């Protein structure tokens, strides 16, 4: 029985890689669809088992397995391997768990997909699981960056899974390019850091940083560049615009990549390099402010969305802002804790939303309603996820949210703290808006009969077992984490005691969340408050939010004016300057040739005449010059 967490983590890492290689190489197996799916799920299950054991075996000790990769004059420049410590094995377990459940769930969700498409889906899924685990376990910046780009690629491939849909292809490209903009910053940061310290290795860098051996000059630029990578990947303002569009992909993909794992890679990166960022408090302040601002912006946007997946997408952006604020306030552990609980309940919410979409065949909230009676299982687990997200005691997100608010308050960031309190209210409001609109109230049967036909007419029902089991597992885990952390509340101390929030914090945070729920209940369930008059009261904000605060337009305008303008200028230079010179030269050659063609008479005697005259001139020249 293996007990080394490093080896176990390596097994967890390599199983999805094996699955990917087999599915990628063995095309006949891939085209069969379902067997490919079960093979991939089997590997994911084995990976999960290994990850759990690695986590259980790990404890607080660190296990490193390294292989030299880029040899250089003064020793190895870069190595690959696994770095298994408490944080990375925990994150590894989350990734393996959600990947396994999502793959299981996808069998039911994509049952209408043709077999080759299904095989392709599971190939990408396996590649993603491998890449994400390689990112989590990366022992140095080089492997981290490679895995970082690989998950970006998988995200692109899976958003554009239905590539026949123009919106999906567009969204995939948009996601790829916008995250790439941040990745350029990350790459620059990594190289600058290497120039400063001479190593990519996390372990050595940490020793340098904590020993005070790292020169502080220029370090702010480096950490800011690394943060830029996190801004792109974790959808922070202003690069958050790709995440809502990424919802064009299949819903299980949104649950895995765009809620639970990949988008949290930025938060994870900052958690991993916490000791580096601690040296540059001014960058941390930027992280906190941008995080809080992103949280508020996305929460406001989530309130006006009619697409159930877009509400969840903006909610993800908002919660990522929460985590970033905690890291900015100097308590990365709180952000990481929220990352884990959020991974559980947001995957649950997305998979629940997927079940609803699967049953109703629409993303639009106005096409749902009264689903609680028809889909009781889905309704219950969705409610668990919603309560977790709202931060209600005994549910998943409660304590992690408290930790973040406490950390931000104790860190002296009053502004971000107030923003986050508003976000807590809005979070509860928009999530319960979804719950009341989708699961309660009157069923919107008109749409269903109109679009789905007689077979399913008016009978949305709970999903099959392969989809229900992952939902229940995630719901149970959200609840389990919530109950145990709430019970153990005072024992579960993340960070030193002075970073704890004041006593009034927990009641007020819960009160704010309850107020949000109450507001949603009055508006969308009891209809005491008219939704349209509520909308009118917030008229300008609502209009701005419906236009996505014009951020997409600004990007598009920048693209139009900047990039296209530049392209036109370059095109003009090419067309008129470069081509012009060449055209003038060739035209001149042509006319010159035309002018001298008369010399060529074709009569041999003229040539003899020329030769004779030339010889004569030559002789005279020899006579006069050489004499």
């Amino acid at each position, binding site marked *: 029985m293996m007990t080394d967490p490093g080896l176990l983590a390596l097994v967890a890492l390599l199983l999805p890689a094996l699955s990917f290689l087999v599915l990628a190489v063995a095309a006949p197996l891939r085209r069969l669809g379902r067997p490919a799916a079960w093979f991939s799920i089997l590997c994911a299950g084995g990976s999960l088992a290994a990850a759990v054991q690695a986590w259980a075996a790990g404890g607080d000790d660190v296990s490193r397995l390294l292989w030299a990769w880029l040899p250089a004059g003064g020793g190895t420049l870069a190595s690959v391997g696994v770095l298994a410590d408490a944080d990375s094995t925990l994150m590894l377990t989350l990734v393996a768990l959600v990947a396994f459940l999502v793959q299981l769930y996808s069998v039911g969700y994509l049952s209408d997909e043709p077999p080759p498409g299904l095989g392709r889906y599971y190939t990408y899924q396996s590649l993603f699981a491998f890449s994400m685990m390689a990112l989590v376990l990366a022992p140095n910046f080089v492997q981290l960056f490679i895995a970082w780009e690989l998950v970006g690629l998988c995200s692109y491939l899976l958003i554009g899974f239905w590539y026949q849909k123009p919106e999906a292809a567009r969204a995939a490209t948009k996601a790829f390019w916008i995250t790439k903009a941040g990745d350029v910053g990350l790459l620059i940061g990594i190289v600058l850091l290497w120039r400063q310290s001479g190593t990519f290795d996390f372990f050595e860098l940490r020793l340098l940083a904590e020993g005070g051996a790292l020169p502080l000059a220029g370090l702010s630029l480096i950490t800011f560049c690394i943060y830029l990578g996190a801004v792109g990947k974790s959808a922070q303002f202003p690069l958050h615009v790709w995440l809502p569009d990424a919802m064009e992909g299949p819903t299980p993909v949104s649950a895995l990549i765009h809620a639970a794992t990949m988008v949290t890679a930025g938060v994870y990166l900052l958690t991993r390099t916490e000791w580096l960022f601690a040296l540059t408090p001014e960058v941390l302040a930027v992280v906190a402010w941008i995080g809080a601002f992103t949280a508020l912006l996305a929460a406001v946007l989530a309130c006006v969305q009619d697409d159930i997946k877009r509400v969840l997408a903006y909610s993800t952006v908002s919660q990522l802002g929460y985590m970033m604020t905690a890291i900015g306030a100097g308590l990365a552990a709180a952000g990481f804790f929220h990352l884990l609980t959020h991974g559980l309940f947001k995957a649950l919410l997305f998979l629940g939303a997927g079940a609803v979409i699967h049953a109703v065949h629409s993303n639009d909230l106005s096409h749902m309603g009264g689903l609680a009676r028809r889909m009781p299982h889905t309704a219950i687990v969705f409610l668990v996820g919603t309560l977790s997200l709202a931060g209600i005691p005994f549910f998943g997100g409660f304590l992690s949210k408290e930790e973040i608010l406490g950390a931000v308050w104790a860190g002296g960031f009053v502004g971000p703290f107030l923003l986050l309190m508003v976000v807590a209210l809005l979070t509860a409001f928009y999530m319960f808006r979804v719950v009341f609109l989708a699961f309660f109230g009157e069923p919107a049967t008109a749409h269903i009969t109109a679009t789905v036909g007689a077979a399913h007419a008016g009978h949305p029902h709970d999903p099959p077992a392969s989809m229900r089991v992952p939902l229940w597992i995630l719901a149970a885990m959200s609840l389990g984490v919530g109950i145990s952390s709430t019970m153990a509340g005072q024992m579960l101390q993340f960070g030193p005691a002075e970073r704890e929030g004041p006593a009034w914090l927990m009641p007020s945070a819960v009160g704010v969340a309850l107020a949000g729920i109450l507001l949603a209940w009055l508006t969308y369930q009891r209809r005491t408050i008219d939704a349209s008059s509520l909308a009118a009261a917030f008229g300008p904000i609502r209009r701005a939010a419906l236009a996505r605060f014009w951020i997409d337009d600004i990007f598009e305008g920048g693209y139009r004016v900047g990039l296209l303008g530049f392209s036109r200028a370059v095109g003009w230079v090419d067309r008129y300057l470069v081509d012009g010179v060449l055209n003038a030269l060739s035209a001149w050659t042509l006319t010159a040739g035309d002018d001298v*063609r*008369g*010399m*060529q*008479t*074709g*009569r*041999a*005697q003229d040539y*003899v*005449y020329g030769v*004779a005259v030339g010889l004569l001139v030559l002789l005279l020249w020899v006579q006069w010059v050489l004499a």
Partner: protein
Amino acid sequence: MSLQAYLTLAAAVFCIGLFGVMTRRNTIGILLGIELMLNAVNINLVAFARFGGDVTGLIFTVFTICITVSEAALGLAIVILLFRVRRTVTADHLDLLRG
């Protein structure tokens, strides 16, 4: 007689031959001009051999005469073929390579 007299004669024959090549309209006339130029060279070779005391020039002259004969035979054959194809041997009309 001096060497200079032979060289002057050779130069005169060469120039007459060149003049014929450049001005004759008839292709056969041009061939005759070429023969004259080649014979001017022969006079030069023989004169230098005689005055230099070296037989190389004489041997070269024999070569030149052989080559001249074959050249004349080939040239006349070409002219005959040309006449068959183009029905003319006037040099001014043979300008297919005009630019």
